[in-house]
């Protein structure tokens, strides 16, 4: 691709990124986004703009898992994302200034880049009791989210908490936590579920946005299809064992050493759509199932409440104790009906005998037997 080389501004070199690395990185982005190579030029030029788009990263009721995941970015490297591709101006966990300096920086972005900056949200937003469960500089998370996310060009909710309230919102949701979409209705949001998000996908979304000024194709949950379009189970390297009926039966057993399927240990790979088995984690090193533990469907909607308990195949049945499984409920229903039916059969036989002995003594109809014309 020699013509592209000429397009590359020398500013890129000055940033310490080699031409080759950069092209390699752009091609990788294309692959992640499943775009044809003819878009390479567009990606390259978009990513090498001298004026970098501004990004602010807001943390609310979070555990910083998505921040940490971001710090593990390898393609592009975290330094490239944070320093070269974007002007990453607000991010509490890693930004230089604190207190007033931080507040002013955020206010400046909202004011000076109104309608142009990207807002990333990590963590849930508490809405109970006027939002007192999360304040920053004396303002509630809700207040800040409303301001920052309604003045941005795009909002990205990273991780389960920002998407649907995540762990924080799990029953009994003590703080009335919600995801961004619900807490600040009406603003456009792209959701990158997962607990945390896998930065490989987030980086690709950012690159897509920088290149095309729009978000990649989304599913009904506003999640990018390229990452959330397929269930874990269909991409899992243990799938052949599943199909063949080879299962880990106990932790640490022979099957677990041979890498057999974890379905019986509660693996929720058949529930969750995510691309873990393919992009994997930490520069493609591994993913949960590969380390021998089932998937907990961390990229599924409201997974904390709805995909748990994690070591059981199915959720608890509402109305029954949490220690009662769906299977026990099912067999219970069958058992009760079988019992009642058997009892009825016995009753019927007893009645027949009674009637037989009565019938030999008297004849004539009981009042009860007067009935049942079809018209009745």
């Amino acid at each position, binding site marked *: 691709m020699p013509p592209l080389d000429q397009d590359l501004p020398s500013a890129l070199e000055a940033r310490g990124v080699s031409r080759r690395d950069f092209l390699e990185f752009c091609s990788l982005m294309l692959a992640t986004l499943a775009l044809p190579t003819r878009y390479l030029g567009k990606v390259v030029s978009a990513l090498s703009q001298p004026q970098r788009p501004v990004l602010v990263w807001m943390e609310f009721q979070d555990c910083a898992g998505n921040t940490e995941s971001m710090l593990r970015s390898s393609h592009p*490297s975290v330094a490239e994302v944070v320093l070269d591709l974007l002007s990453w101006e607000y991010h509490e966990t890693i930004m230089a200034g604190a207190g007033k300096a931080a507040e002013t920086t955020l206010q400046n972005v909202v004011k000076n880049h109104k309608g142009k900056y990207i807002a990333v949200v990590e963590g849930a937003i508490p809405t109970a009791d006027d939002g007192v469960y999360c304040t920053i500089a004396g303002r509630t998370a809700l207040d800040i989210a409303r301001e920052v996310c309604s003045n941005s060009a795009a909002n990205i909710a990273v991780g389960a908490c920002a998407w649907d309230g995540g762990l924080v919102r799990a029953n009994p949701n003590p703080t009335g936590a919600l995801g961004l979409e619900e807490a600040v209705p009406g603003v456009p949001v792209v959701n990158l579920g997962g*607990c945390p998000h896998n930065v490989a996908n987030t980086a690709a979304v950012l690159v897509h946005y920088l290149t095309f000024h729009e978000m990649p194709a989304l599913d009904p949950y506003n999640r990018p299809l390229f990452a959330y379009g397929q269930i874990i189970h269909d991409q899992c390297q243990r799938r052949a064992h599943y199909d063949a009926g080879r299962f880990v039966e106990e932790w640490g057993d022979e099957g677990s050493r041979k890498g057999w399927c974890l379905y019986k240990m509660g693996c929720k790979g058949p529930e969750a759509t995510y691309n873990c088995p393919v992009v994997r984690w930490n520069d493609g090193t591994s993913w949960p199932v590969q380390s021998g533990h089932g998937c907990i469907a961390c990229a599924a909607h409201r997974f904390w409440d709805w995909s748990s308990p994690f070591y059981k195949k199915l959720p608890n049945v509402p109305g029954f104790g949490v220690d009662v499984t769906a299977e026990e409920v099912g067999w219970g229903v069958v058992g009760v009906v079988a019992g009642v039916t058997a009892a009825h059969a016995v009753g019927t036989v007893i009645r027949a005998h009674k009637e037989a002995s009565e019938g030999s003594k008297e004849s004539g109809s009981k009042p009860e037997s007067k009935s049942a014309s079809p018209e009745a």
Partner: protein
Amino acid sequence: MARMVVDPITRIEGHLRVEAQVDGGKISDAWSSGTMFRGIELIVRGRDPREAWLWTQRICAVCTMVHALASVRAVENALDIEVPDNARLVRNIISATQYVHDHIIHFYHLHALDWVDITGALKADPAKTSQLAQSISEWPVSSTAYFQGVQNRVKTLVESRQLSLFTSGYWGHPAYHLPPEVDLLAVAHYLQALEFQREFIRIHAVLGGKNPHLQSYLVGGMSTSLDPNEPDAPINPERIDFLVEVASKAKTFVDQVLIPDVLAVAGFYPEWFHLGAGPGNYLSYGAFPQGRIQDIGRYFLPRGVLLNNDLSKVYPVDPSKVAEYVAHSWYTYDQGNNVALPPAEGETHPKYTGPKPPYEFLNVEEKYSWLKAPRYDDRVMEVGPLSRMLVSYASGQPEVKALVDGALAKLKAPPAALFSTLGRVAARALETQLLANHLVGWIEQLRRNMDSGDLRIHNGEKWDPETWPRSARGYGLFEAPRGSLGHWVEIEDTLIKNYQIVVPTTWNAGPRDAKGRRGAYEVALLQTPIADPERPLEVLRTIHSFDPCLACAVH
């Protein structure tokens, strides 16, 4: 006399606010407040204790996995489950990796900018920087051209007038006084450490599937089966080779980059070996069992308490002496405001009584934080690497003694210098080195077990809840990177009835207790000089030296 407010305190995990009274350019009183609450202790109630670790692990991802470990230990303790030796080893390897990783990120990415002026790097002579680098370390990435490249990168950044993460920094603050060459060296290593940490953490990916939030813990052991002959086993010879390779690189990085950098930076700020002293009582639960978890005497980092900065006597730890106050915390206790409850009987009833947001100041006379105030034997404690190193030193842990004495000699300082802001930084660095030294050995031990045919990784005797008693209580203790961590669990009818978590940062960043005694941060900030209340660099130095994690502290 003015009240200064620093909120948000950045380059930490979570939402921390400090209010301080400044008199004559010095802090005369301080209040530390956590401003975010999630209620995880309430959320795990009624759930399966075997999965509590998956939930509580999400308390924090900066110290990811430490809550997972404390949680499985608590349940194992309650149900009297002993884990196989391989599981102990895998847990230790993961934890040691976590320490090294967390401490490196802390120094370079969360703390360094308190000492290093990025713009100073522009004035540096790359050739001199190269000389300096080569004089303090063997680290090969130290050519003039390399430092020139880094400087160019900083220059482009500054000239673009888009400073990204550095936009809000306190550049040119009078409290910065590193020579430009050291600034440039540190900036270069800031970038290198970013790359390093993401390579290094692949150890967690192998042993935990992913980082953050590893997913291989189990009550009773680990899910990472090992087999010398199975290519699909989570741990096999090939994976071990990989771990050894990554861990060896980490040792080199720590020896050749982290330690020289810490010593170099510390050398230019001697006054900070006299500032920032904490309450003087140090707690460590001990970490890295070398045998069964009950054999406390065989922990690699010993358990103990030191009182009043006295290194001559190490007191044993009795976990039942831990208790939490809520007198100045936004909670209520059934028995009133002024009692301290041990976590085994702990309560979590959130009740916000602070000012209505948006607010300017907290009402520090009343309740002012989401953190509870933990006390040990009714004493304020400091926890963290400094406590661990001091307890180890005082207990005569030979390696720690050698490392600490060596560093003190280099800095020409007495042991008392450690009771300070930079003492915490130094202790953290030494601890990093100590663990980096052992990581490869522990991985090799795992290999030896595997090769000798010991493949046990999980004890499944009590996996089935049917085997459990109707009710059970237990606790799991661990030293997280930031200090002493405990999870207390009460199980009834196979489900969690009560769950209480007392976290390192709760110890350090907690508010006053019912007796009005300040928490560790609040003590440490006293007497801190403040050059410019609008640019609270000095506050950040001391607070950051504790490596705060507020998501942990409140949970």
